[in-house]
């Protein structure tokens, strides 16, 4: 009974706030209004626009010609390139993440302590992260070029390929060439994130473990990795999401080739809009599908992360 009375009082209080409460609420809205407007303008409206376009017959040159729902979606799902690009993007994401994460972790372990040359090493490893991904891709495009790049003669000498063949000319060559670029470009960035996580682990835990006679390997296994879990989870979310949305490096290095074998999902969206179909409706429909998939993936990842935090 007492609980019911209290609940009724709360409901009344909510329905008829006091003048002071109203003032506080208004003040609260005034504080959040600028951000709310930004969120609406920069996120909600564009998402709404893309959702609207995904149901419209919207050509690149001709503009909106009316409703086309659900044809854009069925056309996208019927395109054999979709399966090919999803499969390739997942393979690329898996490879990149499995290679990038351990390398970043090892680099962080290597340079985290204040040794004499570590500052130089940290800077050297971080320098590629200061370059834009497009600039890095152009740099590697020149490196991989059979005409002007230095790699072809070396691979030719090693008997791995003909000097006039293109590294980017085969599906596997193009995939691995891009993975090398991405690891080079992002290893330093993920190394810094991992270092922040490592430095957040209190030193006295290691001291206590040493006093108990734990070896370095045991300390790594029992202290470092478990306490670094939130950082690893965060870097994995960044790596997986970034790889699923890969575009620039493939646009510059392979354009989805050879024979569409390095087509990523975002590259396919671009091709729908500007290269092959010139159909903004289809591009928007695929964007919506990717958005939904990414939300689901991130929800799973965050849920797993939160579950582990509770543990």
């Amino acid at each position, binding site marked *: 009974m007492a609980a019911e009375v209290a609940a009724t009082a709360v409901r009344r209080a909510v329905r008829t706030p006091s003048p002071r409460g*109203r003032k506080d609420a208004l003040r609260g*809205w005034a504080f959040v209004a600028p951000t709310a407007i930004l969120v609406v303008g920069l996120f909600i409206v564009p998402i709404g626009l893309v959702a609207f376009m995904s149901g419209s017959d919207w050509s690149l040159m*001709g*503009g909106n010609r009316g409703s086309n729902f659900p044809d854009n979606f069925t056309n996208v799902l019927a395109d054999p390139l979709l399966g090919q690009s999803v499969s390739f993007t997942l393979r690329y994401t898996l490879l990149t993440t499995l290679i990038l994460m351990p390398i970043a972790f090892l680099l962080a372990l290597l340079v985290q302590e204040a040794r004499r040359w570590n500052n130089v090493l940290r800077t050297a490893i971080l320098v590629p992260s200061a370059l834009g991904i497009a600039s890095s891709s152009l740099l590697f495009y020149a490196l991989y070029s059979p005409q002007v790049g230095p790699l072809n003669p070396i691979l030719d000498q090693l008997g791995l390929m003909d000097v*006039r063949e293109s590294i980017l000319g085969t599906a596997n060559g193009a995939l691995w060439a891009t993975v090398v670029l991405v690891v080079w470009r992002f290893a330093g960035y993920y190394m810094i994130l991992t270092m922040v996580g490592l430095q957040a682990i209190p030193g006295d835990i290691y001291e206590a473990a040493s006093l108990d006679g734990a070896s370095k390997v045991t300390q790594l296994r029992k202290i470092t990795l478990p306490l670094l879990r939130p950082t690893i989870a965060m870097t994995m979310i960044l790596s997986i999401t970034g790889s699923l949305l890969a575009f620039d490096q493939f646009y510059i290095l392979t354009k989805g080739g050879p024979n569409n074998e390095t087509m990523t999902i975002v590259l396919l969206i671009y091709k729908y809009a500007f*290269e092959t179909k010139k159909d903004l409706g289809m591009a928007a429909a695929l964007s919506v599908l990717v958005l939904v998939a990414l939300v689901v993936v991130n929800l799973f990842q965050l849920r797993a992360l939160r579950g582990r935090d509770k543990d």
Partner: protein
Amino acid sequence: MARHHSFRTGAAVLAGGLLLAGLTACGSDDEGEAGGDAVSIPAEGTDDGTTLTMWTRAPLERQAINAVEAYNATHENQVELEILPNDDVEGKVGAAAQTDTLPDILAGDVVRIPYWTNEGIFLDITEQIDSLANLDDLQQGHIDAGTIEGGKHTLPFVTDISVMVWNKDLYEQAGLDPEQGPQTLDEFVEHATAVAALDQEGVAGSYLAGQSGGALVFKLLPSIWASGGEPLSADGTEAMMASDEATAVYSAYRQLAEIDNGLGAGSRDETGATWTAPFQEGNIGVMPYPFTAVTGMFEDGPFEVGVAPIPGVDGGGSTFLGGDAIGISRSSENAAQAWNFMAWLMSDEAQQTVFADNNDTAANLTVLAEGYADADPRTAIANATVADGRTPVAVNFNEAFNAAGSPWQLLIQDAVWGDASTIEAHNDAINAILAQ
């Protein structure tokens, strides 16, 4: 709570309003019909000191600058030229089309012109084009590309043709007559095989850009035309890339792919970025080639180059009339002035000073025949191919043929290096796109 609820509703209405405003701005319900409205323009256009805007793509920068500088120097109107990076053209034109901010004059890759015309990017200038005194003298490919349901929208801007070239030094070493290029497809294979048999380091019989749909149509379609075949139906909605003539062309290249040094290393992977380099380096015996890339080698090249029309199965010759066509955009408020530029560009005098005098290919057949008196004799051979040259016209040509990974590119990969029994299936895939 009710107040909060109403605020949320207000925010939603605001967002919806913004969205609708955006959509209204982006939409163009009353435009985009095939072919812009016919407009009233004097036959010679108007030269009243108006400043005109013009877009062209980067590969044609030199020719475009020559044309604009010559016009600006002799007219009151002034053309301001903007050069677009090749890859940005489609996006920029699309955005401008939806916001009605297209330039007065727009030049574009001739194989994309049918799509642009179909989307109503250009004004219908049939009356003006038909009134040109020298219309019959102009190459028709670029006019056909912009013709929809009888309405003409474009004229030739820069003509880029393909020719057969051969390395006379390598021919001599291979025991071939260096003055006689291949006159049939069989001779082409025979000559390339002889050069391949030299077995010199890095030297190959011929070369193909296997991953470049654009280069592949530029090189192979002339052989189909010269053989009497048609790659496309007249309305551009059906492909005949599995015809006898077409398969004979693929077969010639397959024969070369199957012998040592028949096709240069990298042919299968070549994306088009460097497909002219191996011949320029003196490593290729004989191949179809862009004429614009060969003229510079006449005087300064490290070896002697031979030039001939691209032959068909049993002879004949043809060329791909590539390059860019030009039209007046539907957004232009200076159509009469823009036509003044275009009409001037078609005149014999302008074709001579802008193109012939700079050793570029003119669009005017008389100038092509008579305007290159001081040029290398090989230029006359190349110029003569224009009369028999063709431009494929299809609204969805780019997606079916030019785009990276297009079904045409996959067809060539299989026909030359892979499973040739799939040609019919690839042709069906091309048809599915063309019919969209």
